[in-house]
């Protein structure tokens, strides 16, 4: 499953992403982040992290540098405002 997800992301990166140009607010970009998340944490945690990242990559966020955490903590999934 995780491999399949990675394959799909690689397909996206190679063929679909160039159509839209760079657009991610974060570094590494959402797709690179997702790839890393699946590699590091497998399918379920990888999906969770990816969804959370995609939700954070919205027009109200400021973006910035955000690597895949080595260990999942509830702290990471909190909305940070102040």
């Amino acid at each position: 499953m995780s491999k399949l997800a990675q394959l799909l992301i690689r397909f996206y990166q190679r063929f679909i992403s160039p159509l839209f140009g760079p657009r991610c607010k974060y570094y590494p970009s959402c797709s690179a982040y997702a790839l890393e998340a699946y590699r590091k944490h497998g399918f379920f945690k990888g999906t969770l992290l990816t969804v959370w990242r995609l939700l954070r990559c919205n027009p109200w966020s400021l973006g910035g540098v955000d690597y895949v955490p080595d260990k999942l903590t509830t702290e990471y999934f909190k909305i940070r405002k102040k």
Partner: protein
Amino acid sequence: MGIIATPLGWIMKGCYFVCKNYGIALLLFTILTRLIVFPLNVKQQKSTARMTMLQPELEKIKKKYAKNQQKMQEEQMNLYAKAGVNPMASCLPMVITMVILFALIPVIYGPLTYVSNADKEELTDSNNMISNLYVVSAEVKSKDTTIEKLIEKFEKDGATEDEAYDKLEKLFTDKDKYPKSAKALSNDNKISNVMDAIKAHNDIDTFILNENYFSTNLIQSRPELMTFVFTEKEGGQYADVLPTSVKAAAEDFNYSIFGLFLGKIPTMKDLSCIIPIVSALLQLIVTFVSQHFAKKNNPDAANMGGMGMKIMLYGMPIFSLWIGFSYPAGLGLYWCYSSLFALGQTIVLNKIYTPEHVAELVQKDIAKQKKKGKPTLMEKMAEAQMIQAGKDPAEIRKSLSDDEDYDEPKKKTKTELKDEQRRRLNEARKRMAEKYGDEYDDSQD
């Protein structure tokens, strides 16, 4: 997809209820969904326009980290976060657009399921009946005969009318003589539906095999789209084979625009090719116009993405052309509306947020900030993000103000060096793997 398609179906249902025409309902639907995401676009436009003011800082970073691409991008992102602007459009809106597009496919394919009031069970029955009837008809034809001739033959052999139909049913479920029909009918326990249709119209097989009415590639995979043929062609005389609620819904349903049936997959052979072509043209114009404004507002950034811009300019229209020719005309029509709306939006937003206007806005912001005498929300958020990244905000602030000490990284201990080497090696391997499309596995060392 069903989870997303169902609410979209509800919205479509509401739109259809208002204007009673699927083509116009689709326009209403586009405007509605676009209006929902409109604030996001305004926000984005402001952010992009403010970017021009950060240009000198960016140049500095580029010069400083010219050799270290990764560090350069990191610092760029940090700068954006600190200034509270980000030129990137962010991924979520794009993901949402794509999800809506693909979730719309089942809604377009199943107008009666999602939009009409037809009874769901009867609809399933009717869909199965149509596709089974097609399989049976096609197999009867492959034996160089028709259902009418078969019945005549049975009756000649002395069978009454009812007996003839019984024999016909046995024949169609005979795995040796009619393997395809037998297989199709065994999947569905409602053979009686098919038999009833045959009883009502002995010549229904010639009707269903008429290629001017039914498209062969849709009747088996998407029988629902073919429901309309029963009510529209041949004066609707075959419509009585449909279940009552399905018949009523199909008769009432206006699934076309300017006389073009929206369930049809466009082909080059007839006028339906207009939809994909128009959608590609509109897409080309949208991309061209938005790139034109991007260049005007921010020449440096535009020069950076030279090749990418070209791919975008021609890639998107080709993508929409492909979508247009492989899915029903309704989806292509949605794409046309969508592009049209995007075009209007781009022009209006760029007329409002001209660089001069943005400069004014920024002045106001600064004045406000001075009044308050405390950091803006933007700055606070930026700080929070830095804490999240595991950095001390005080240190960040210092390093951003005088970060001339980057040039030489501090001396490292042996283990740190080893770690770093391993990391670099891994990264190089990853790059190679990516380059050649191989699988890369972190655990291999």
